[in-house]
Structures are given as C-alpha cells and as structure tokens.
C-alpha cells in the first residue's frame, strides 16, 4: 500500500474544489543513482477521483508528472460533509486510496 496523500476538499456556491498532494517518487527510469546505475521507472499511472462514490475524474499519467504529485480540480455538486476519495495505482501495481470530508 502506498504512502498516504493529503486531500483538501472545500465547497462553495455549489462547486467543490479538491486539492491533492500525493506522496510518490515518480521515478522516470532515466535517473542514475550515485553509483551510476539507472533507477528503474516507478510512477503513478492511473488516478481515480470520486465524489460520494461516483467517479468524477480519471487520469492516466506518465513519468513526467512531478514527484509528490499535486492535483487540483473542481466538481459541480458536493456539499459540506460529503466525501471525496482519490485512488492511485502505480507501475509496480501498488495502490493507495484516501478519503476526505468536504469542508
């Protein structure tokens, strides 16, 4: 199971804004370690966002999303107390899902 991410979800005028900070190395496979060996690629390639158990966004990523990925998006609907969940899967098959309550 991957490392936890930080999710902040706020609702205003019927629109929920979600900001996510994930914890992941996002290795491109092009970086060399101090001994000169290539560090193998390891990056999040699938992301799913849900608002109250309904999928509202899905993403496919490559290795060039920055380390510790940041993501912000907005969804119509959702109100204080509702749930947002973000799930990711990486190229090793590791996964992580975290939930946040909308403020």
């Amino acid at each position, binding site marked *: 199971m991957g490392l936890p991410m930080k999710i902040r979800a706020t609702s205003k005028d019927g629109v929920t804004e979600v900001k996510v900070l994930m914890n992941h190395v996002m290795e491109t496979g092009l*970086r060399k370690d101090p001994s000169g060996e290539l560090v193998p690629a390891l990056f999040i*390639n699938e992301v799913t966002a849900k*608002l109250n158990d309904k*999928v509202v*966004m*899905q993403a496919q*990523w490559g290795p060039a999303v920055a380390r510790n990925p940041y993501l*912000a998006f907005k969804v119509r609907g959702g109100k204080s107390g509702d749930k947002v969940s973000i799930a990711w899967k990486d190229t090793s098959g590791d996964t992580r899902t975290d939930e946040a309550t909308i403020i």
Partner: protein
Amino acid sequence: MNLRYQASRRGFLRLTGFFGLATSALALAPRLALAAWNKAAFETKSLADAYKALGVESPIASGDVQLSVPEIAENGAVVPVEAISKIPNTTQISFMVEKNPTTLTAQFDLGPDTLPEISTRLKMAETSNVIALVKADGKFYMAKKEIKVTLGGCGG
C-alpha cells in the same frame, strides 16, 4: 481425507473466492469508461507521434484553451501548469511537453459534472513548449506556451 488435502482445498477455495470478488468489483462499471493505461501513448517521443497514438488528427489552436504556466521554471523537476477550457462539452484535458523524452505527460478524463480545469505539476527536461490538449464533442483543440527551464528536471 487427510488433513493436508483439506488444507490445500481450503486454500484453493479461498483463492478462487478472492478472484471471484475481484472480478465482480470490476463489473461495477463506473460512469466514466475505465480505459486501461495507454502505455504506447505515454512512450511516444514527439508531438506528432503522441497525437497519432491518441487518435488526434489536427488539433485546432484555440484561445478558448487557457494555459497558465510560468515563463521561466527555475526547477524543471516541478513546473506548475494549469489548463482551463472554455469550450462547451469538454471531456478530456491533456498536457504534453514537446521536448521531454516522452511527450505525453498526463491525461485527465472528466465526468459530466467536473469543471474543465486542471492544475498539476510536471517535470520538464529542458526549455520546451508545453501543450494543453482539450477534447470536446469528439474534436481536439490546443494551446501552447514555451517555458524556459533553467535546471532540467527529468534526471537524465
């Protein structure tokens, strides 16, 4: 039946039960089509090849695709980008970095209630054009801006 047979049969049933549960979870199809990761598209090494892999013919340059990026990125490892589409029925927003080792960096499929705006952070290997590609009503639109990179961020 001896105990060893019982244990292995129990283990086998447990295993098939788990797979049964996993496949039934996959059958609960979400409203957004659960597309498998498009590995080929994420391995393309030029804008033309990336467009081809995504089935994009000639995206229309549009002022309605608003791409906000810094003019200069001190650190190519973390470059903030934001795309806002003013085009109705936008269903997908993608970011491409023309001179990266692989051009396509991220693709976002948006549900009907999701606003057509995405902010994220990308890695850039060197000074390059960044492209926001928008899909709306099955057609493709784009905007591009150059970001000067002081210190390249792909680790090469």
